[in-house]
């Protein structure tokens, strides 16, 4: 196995493109090293992206927020401005694993691992996040919901690597939230999860995005759930109809972590609870 630690994104992309065997990107390694330990992955080349300066940046500007692909969960959580602007995205990322895992794990790694239960992904999709994808020849911008195509699968082409995630600029009265259900209080994979991002105008929900995790092969954006609360003050009826829309959008499986029935029911509960938190964060009151 070859280990490379390039210092530019382009160099990383070129290395990945040239490798004929199995090539893996190493950011935090909290998924890759587990796969290697379990014998599920035996890379011929590992490209460590942590030495690329552009991938270590957090930039908050007038046009939006840019988070490098190698920024760890701990660094996200320590960034007060980011936590204030996107509390849902930050708390979702901070839910990945223990403090030990937080020191290594990244949002982009969480995304590219392409697990339906990834914590940061529903929050990013609800936020309307975009990924900056760099290949050996070109760079492109892709919405986060178009990155993962199925369990363990992404739309990235050979040689392509995500350099950063951008979160859009929002109006003042906005808030986001992410909730997941796990049987323990920590150290678990989401059985079901929900991210909600909304903006208010005169106390009424003006725009909203609702995304669910662990209820389908990929995270699911639920426009009907958003519609259910747009134009409301998040009254009981609106919340009920959001919950119903969430449950209706579920297409889960029975597995060791939960049942179809359970995930479908709890998706609605979490969607409703996340919406209430996001609403409150946006300054809404009933």
């Amino acid at each position, binding site marked *: *196995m*070859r*280990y490379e630690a390039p210092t530019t994104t382009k160099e990383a992309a070129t290395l990945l493109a040239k490798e004929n065997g199995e090539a893996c990107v*190493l950011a*935090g*390694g*909290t998924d890759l*090293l*587990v796969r*290697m*330990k*379990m014998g599920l992955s035996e890379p011929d080349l*590992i490209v*460590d992206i*942590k030495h690329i300066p552009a991938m270590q940046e957090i930039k908050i500007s007038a046009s939006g927020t840019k988070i490098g692909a190698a920024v*760890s969960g*701990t660094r996200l959580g320590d960034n007060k401005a980011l936590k204030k602007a996107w509390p849902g995205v930050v708390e979702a990322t901070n839910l990945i*694993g*223990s*403090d*030990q*895992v937080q*020191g*290594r794990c990244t949002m982009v790694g969480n995304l590219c691992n392409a697990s339906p239960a990834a914590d940061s992904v529903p929050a990013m999709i609800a936020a309307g996040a975009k990924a900056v994808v760099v290949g050996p020849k070109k760079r492109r911008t892709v919405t986060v919901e178009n990155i993962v195509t199925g369990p363990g699968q992404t739309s990235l082409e050979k040689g392509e690597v995500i350099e950063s995630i951008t979160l859009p600029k929002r109006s003042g009265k906005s808030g986001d939230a992410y909730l997941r259900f796990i049987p323990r*209080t*920590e*150290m678990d994979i989401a059985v079901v999860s929900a991210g909600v991002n909304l903006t208010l105008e005169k106390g009424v929900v003006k725009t909203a995005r609702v995304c669910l995790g662990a209820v389908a092969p990929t995270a699911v954006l639920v426009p009907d759930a958003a519609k259910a609360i747009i134009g409301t003050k998040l009254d009981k009826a609106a919340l009920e109809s959001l919950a119903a829309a969430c449950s209706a959008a579920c297409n889960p499986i029975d597995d060791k972590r939960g049942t179809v029935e359970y995930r479908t029911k709890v998706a609605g509960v979490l969607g409703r609870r996340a919406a209430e938190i996001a609403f409150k964060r946006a300054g809404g009151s009933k």
Partner: protein
Amino acid sequence: MTGVLVDTTVNGDAVQFACPTDETLLDSLRDRVGLTGVKEGCGTGDCGACSITLDGQLVCSCLVLGVEANGSEIGTVEGLADSESLHPLQEQFINHAALQCGICTPGFLVAAKALLDKNKDPSEEQIRYALAGNLCRCTGYDKIVRAVQAAAKDLRKKKK
């Protein structure tokens, strides 16, 4: 073995070792540097027994490649005590009987130190969540949390 040469600082001392590229830092520390205080309980980042600090950051050494440590500063349980005396956390773990079998203890100590370095006066809940990445099967965590509380108090007194 086709190895790569890795230059590190471990517990303040310059350490050089060679390891295969697919070897974890946990294995490198145990098998090549000889620091067996770092334990493997799962190898998948779920138990925290292999906790170390890497450039000041708390990590599971089973989820880091040995080669990644090149140029880094590593801290392990073996580096907690001063030359003469134990760290207050170590003393309070003993005083509070916060260990039974002791296999998880090195990881707990390293994680608890990382917490107290950041937060001088953590609440019980903060302690419990900060240590959630470290599994203990013997104690029910009761005496561990009390030991960390007592050590935090000692450290605050020391500062004054």
